C-alpha cells in the first residue's frame, strides 16, 4: 500500500527517515568493503595465509578443514550482499520477483554452504570450549532462522518471514560486529588474543539478536 504524504510535516519526517536509512546503508557499505578486503586476502587459495597462519594444526591434521574453511570464506561474503537488496523497501514493494530470486540465493548459500561450514570450523575454533560453543550455536541458529524464514514465505506468512529474516541477517552481520568488538576491546583493555576471542565469540552475535528482537517487539521496522 502506498501512502501519500498528507502534510508538509509528514513529508519532512519521511525525508528524515530516508537520511537515517541512507546513513545505515553507507555504514554497512563501509564494513562490507572491509569484509571484502579480508576475503581477498584468501585469493589465491593458500594453506598458510592470514588466519590460517595460526591454524596449521588443523590444516595439517584434518583433511576437510582447509576446503571447508574456504567454502565459509567465499560464501559468507555473498550473503552479506543481501543487506543491500533484501531490506530495501522500493525493491521489495516494486520488484517482488527480484526480491524472491535474490532471497532464494541468500537462503541457498546460507543453508548449503555458509552455515554448515561455519558449524564445522566452529568445532575447531580457537579459544577452547567457550568459543567453540559460541560459534556452533551461532551456526545452528543461523541455519534455523534462515530455514524458518523461507518456509514462512512459502506459506505466505510474510510478517513472520520478515521477522525471521531479520534474525537471520542479524547473525549474518556477526561477521562484522565480532571484528568490530575485537577492535574496541583490544583498544580499551589490551587483553591476550584468546581471552578477547572467547568474549567476541559471544559478543559478536548476542547483542545483534537482542537488538532485532527489541526492534521487532517495538515494531520499529516496518517495510510498508
Amino acid at each position: 500500500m502506498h501512502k501519500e504524504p498528507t502534510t508538509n510535516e509528514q513529508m519532512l519526517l519521511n525525508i528524515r527517515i530516508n537520511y537515517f536509512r541512507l546513513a545505515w546503508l553507507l555504514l554497512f557499505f563501509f564494513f562490507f568493503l572491509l569484509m571484502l578486503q579480508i576475503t581477498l586476502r584468501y585469493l589465491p587459495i593458500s594453506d598458510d595465509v592470514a588466519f590460517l597462519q595460526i591454524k596449521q594444526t588443523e590444516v595439517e591434521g584434518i583433511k576437510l578443514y582447509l576446503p571447508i574453511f574456504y567454502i565459509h570464506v567465499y560464501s559468507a561474503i555473498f550473503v552479506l550482499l543481501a543487506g543491500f537488496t533484501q531490506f530495501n523497501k522500493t525493491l521489495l514493494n516494486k520488484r517482488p520477483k527480484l526480491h524472491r530470486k535474490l532471497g532464494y540465493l541468500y537462503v541457498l548459500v546460507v543453508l548449503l554452504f555458509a552455515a554448515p561450514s561455519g558449524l564445522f570450523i566452529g568445532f575447531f575454533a580457537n579459544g577452547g570450549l567457550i568459543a567453540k560453543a559460541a560459534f556452533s550455536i551461532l551456526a545452528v541458529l543461523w541455519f534455523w532462522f534462515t530455514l524458518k524464514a523461507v518456509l514462512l514465505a512459502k506459506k505466505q506468512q510474510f510478517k513472520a518471514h520478515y521477522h525471521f529474516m531479520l534474525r537471520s541477517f542479524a547473525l549474518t552481520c556477526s561477521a562484522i560486529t565480532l571484528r568490530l568488538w575485537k577492535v574496541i576491546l583490544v583498544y580499551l583493555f589490551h587483553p591476550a588474543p584468546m581471552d578477547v576471542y572467547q568474549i567476541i565469540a559471544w559478543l559478536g552475535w548476542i547483542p545483534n539478536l537482542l537488538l532485532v528482537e527489541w526492534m521487532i517487539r517495538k515494531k520499529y521496522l516496518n517495510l510498508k
Partner: protein
Amino acid sequence: MNKMKNLVIAFLSILTLASCNSNDEKTEKSAVDSAATVNTTFDHVLGMWVGDFIAEEYQEGSYSENKLSLVIKSIDKDKVIGRSVVVGNDRPLQGTLTNSGNKITFVLDEPGDQKYDGRFEFELNNDTLVGTWKSYNQEINVTKRSFKLLKKVFAYNPNLMLDKNGDYTDRQSSKVKTVTDTIDGKAETFEDEYYRSASKAVFTINSSTQELKESDLKNLRKLDLQILRNTIFARHGYSFKKKTYRQFFDRADWYIPVSNDVNGTLTALEKKNIKLLERFEKYAEDNYDSFGR
C-alpha cells in the same frame, strides 16, 4: 712417629695436588677461550670478560647501558689481540699491555674504519678489568663509556631461562594515547603513555627444549612471542642490535653476547620453534588490534 710423618707428608701432597688441580682448571678454561696461548704469565687474563658498558659522556637523552664482552685472545710479550662484542658489533682489537710490577694495564684499539670504533684502556684489578672506552668519532651520541668486567666462560645451555622475578615491560617503545577527561566540568585532554608487558609465558615456556605447538602460543601477545624467540638467540650468545631485546637479556646473569651471527649453532628443534614463533608474530602484528583476524 714415622707413621705420623708419613701421614703429614701424604696430607701435604694431597693439598698441593688439590691446589694444582684448581690451577689446571683455570688454564683449561682459558685454553677453551683461546687456543693460541703464548705467554703463560698472562694466562689468567686470556678469555672472555663480561660486564656493563656504561655511557659516561653522551649527547643529552642518549644515555645507554649495554652488555659488553671483551675477549683477550692472545698475548705475545706486550702485544695483545682480542675482540669486543657489544650491541651486535663484533670488532677486532689490537694493542699493548704494560706490566709495571703488580699492575697490568692495557691499551687496545678497534680498527677505526667503522663509525663506532674507539680505544679501550683498562687495568686488571684483582679479578676485574676496570677501564674506559673513548670513541675516535666525536660526532656520535656516546663518546665515552666505562666498564667493570668479570671473567666468564660462555657455554650454550638450552635450559637457561629468563628470571621469573624480572620486569618484562618494554620500556623502549610506548604507544601514546590521547585521553579526554572531564574535570570540574571542563574537558581536558591528556596524553597517556602505554607500555606493553610480557606475560608469564616468557619464563615458563622453554623455546630451546620443548617442541612448541600452536596451542602453546595462541594466547600470547606479540611481545611474548618476540621474547620467546629471542631467548633462543640469547642462549647462543647472540649480541642483540635492538634495544627492545637488549633491555630484557642484558639483565640476565647468564647472558653473554659472543657473536652477531649464531644461526649456524641453532639446533633443529630451535629452528622449528623459531619458524612457528615468527609465523605467530606476523599474525599478531597484522591482526591483533585490527579489523579482521
